[in-house]
C-alpha cells in the first residue's frame, strides 16, 4: 500500500483539500449521489450501494494513511458499530421506547441495523482521517509568521483543531482503558454476578448506568488531561508574537 500512497494531507491550498474531503464525504450528509442508485423496495440492493461506498472510503483512507493506521480507525468504527447493533437489538424489546413497531418488525430491525452498521463502518474511519488531514502543528508554525486582526481567532482555531484531533486519538485507546479500569463491567468471568439476584433486570439497568457514566468520565478525564499542554503551547505562540511586536 505504501508504494501507491496518496498524500491528501499535503495538498495545497487548504481550501482545495477541504473541497476534496467534502466532495468525497458528501453521501453521508446529503445522500447524493448514492440515492440515485437506491431503490425503495430492495433492501439488499440499498445496503450493497452503501457497502460499495464503504469499500471506496476504506481504500481511499488506506491509500492515504497506510494499512496500520487504517486498522486503528477500523477498530474504533467496528467497536462503535457493533455496540449500536447490540443496543438496537436489546432496546427494540422495550415497548416504552418503541411503542408502535412495524408489522414486519424483524425485517425492519434487520434492515435498519444493517444499514446503520454499514454507514458507520464507512463514515467513522473517514471522519477520523478527515480531522487528521489538517496538521495543527504546521498551522501553529505558520501562525508565528502571521499578524493582523484575526491572529487571535486563528490561534483559537488552531487550538480547537488540535483538541479535536486529540479526542480522536483518545477514542482509539479508550476501549482498552475503559476495560482495564472497569474489569467487572465487561469481562465474561464476572457476567454471572448479574444473574445472582432475583431482580437481575434491575442489575442490568444499573450495569448500563455504570457503564455509561464510567465511559463518559473516562472520555472526559483522558481528553482534559492534555488540554493544559495545548493551551500553554498556544500561549507561547501569542507571547512570542507580542515580544516581536515590542
Amino acid at each position: 500500500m505504501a508504494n501507491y500512497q496518496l498524500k491528501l494531507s499535503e495538498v495545497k491550498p487548504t481550501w482545495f483539500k477541504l473541497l476534496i474531503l467534502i466532495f468525497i464525504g458528501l453521501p453521508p450528509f446529503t445522500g447524493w449521489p448514492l440515492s440515485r442508485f437506491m431503490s425503495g423496495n430492495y433492501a439488499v440492493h440499498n445496503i450493497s450501494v452503501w457497502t460499495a461506498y464503504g469499500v471506496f472510503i476504506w481504500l481511499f483512507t488506506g491509500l492515504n494513511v497506510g494499512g496500520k493506521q487504517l486498522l486503528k480507525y477500523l477498530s474504533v468504527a467496528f467497536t462503535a458499530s457493533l455496540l449500536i447493533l447490540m443496543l438496537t437489538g436489546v432496546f427494540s424489546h422495550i415497548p416504552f421506547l418503541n411503542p408502535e413497531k412495524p408489522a414486519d418488525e424483524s425485517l425492519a430491525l434487520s434492515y435498519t441495523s444493517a444499514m446503520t452498521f454499514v454507514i458507520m463502518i464507512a463514515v467513522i474511519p473517514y471522519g477520523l482521517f478527515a480531522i487528521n488531514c489538517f496538521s495543527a502543528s504546521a498551522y501553529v508554525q505558520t501562525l508565528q509568521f502571521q499578524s493582523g486582526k484575526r491572529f487571535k481567532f486563528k490561534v483559537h482555531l488552531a487550538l480547537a483543531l488540535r483538541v479535536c484531533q486529540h479526542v480522536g486519538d483518545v477514542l482509539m485507546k479508550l476501549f482498552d482503558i475503559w476495560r482495564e479500569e472497569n474489569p467487572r463491567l465487561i469481562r465474561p468471568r464476572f457476567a454471572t454476578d448479574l444473574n445472582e439476584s432475583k431482580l437481575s433486570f434491575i442489575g442490568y439497568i444499573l450495569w448500563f448506568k455504570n457503564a455509561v457514566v464510567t465511559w463518559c468520565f473516562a472520555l472526559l478525564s483522558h481528553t482534559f488531561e492534555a488540554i493544559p499542554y495545548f493551551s500553554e503551547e498556544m500561549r507561547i505562540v501569542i507571547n512570542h508574537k507580542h515580544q516581536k511586536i515590542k
Partner: protein
Amino acid sequence: MENKWTLGKTAVVAALTALAALGTMIIRVPIFISTGYFNIGDIFVILAGLWLGPVPGLIVGAFGPAVADAVGYPQFIVATFLIKGTEGLAVGLIGGGPFVTSIKRKASAAVCGGLIMVFGYFVFEAFIYPFIGNYVPFFKVTNLAGAYGELPANITQAVLGVVGGMAMWKPLSNRR
C-alpha cells in the same frame, strides 16, 4: 475559568463539542416510528451549559450533535443544530454560568434544557418537517404519529441528559 474567553475555554469547548458528537454517535438506538434515534449526547450539551455558560453551551449543542447526525441521519442535522443549540444556550442562561453554584438553579436549568429538547423535536417532527417535506422530499421523514411515538424515547433521553449532566457538572464545578 475566567469570564472572558481564554485559550483554556476554547480548548474545553472544542473538547466538549467533540465529546457531544461522540456521545451522540456511539450510543445510539434507532426508533422505528420516527426514523430518529435515542442517544446520550445531551449529557455533554447540558454539562457545557451548566459548567461554562450560555455561549459555550450554544456552540457545543449546535455543532457536536449536528456533526453526529451526518452519520446516517442527515435529514435531522438542521433540527438538531437549532434545538440542541437552543438547549445549550438555555441551560447556560438559566444556570447562570460558571460562577453560580446553586444546585437548585443548576437542576432547574438542566430540566429546562431537557424540556426544550423534547418539545423542539416534537414540533420539528410533527409540523415543520412534514411541511417542508411537501416541497423537499429529503425532509419527508416524520409525521404527527411519529412525533408522538418518539416522545417516550426523547423524554428518557432528556432524563439521562439531565442526570448525567448534573452528575458530571458536580465534580467539575470546582475547576474554573
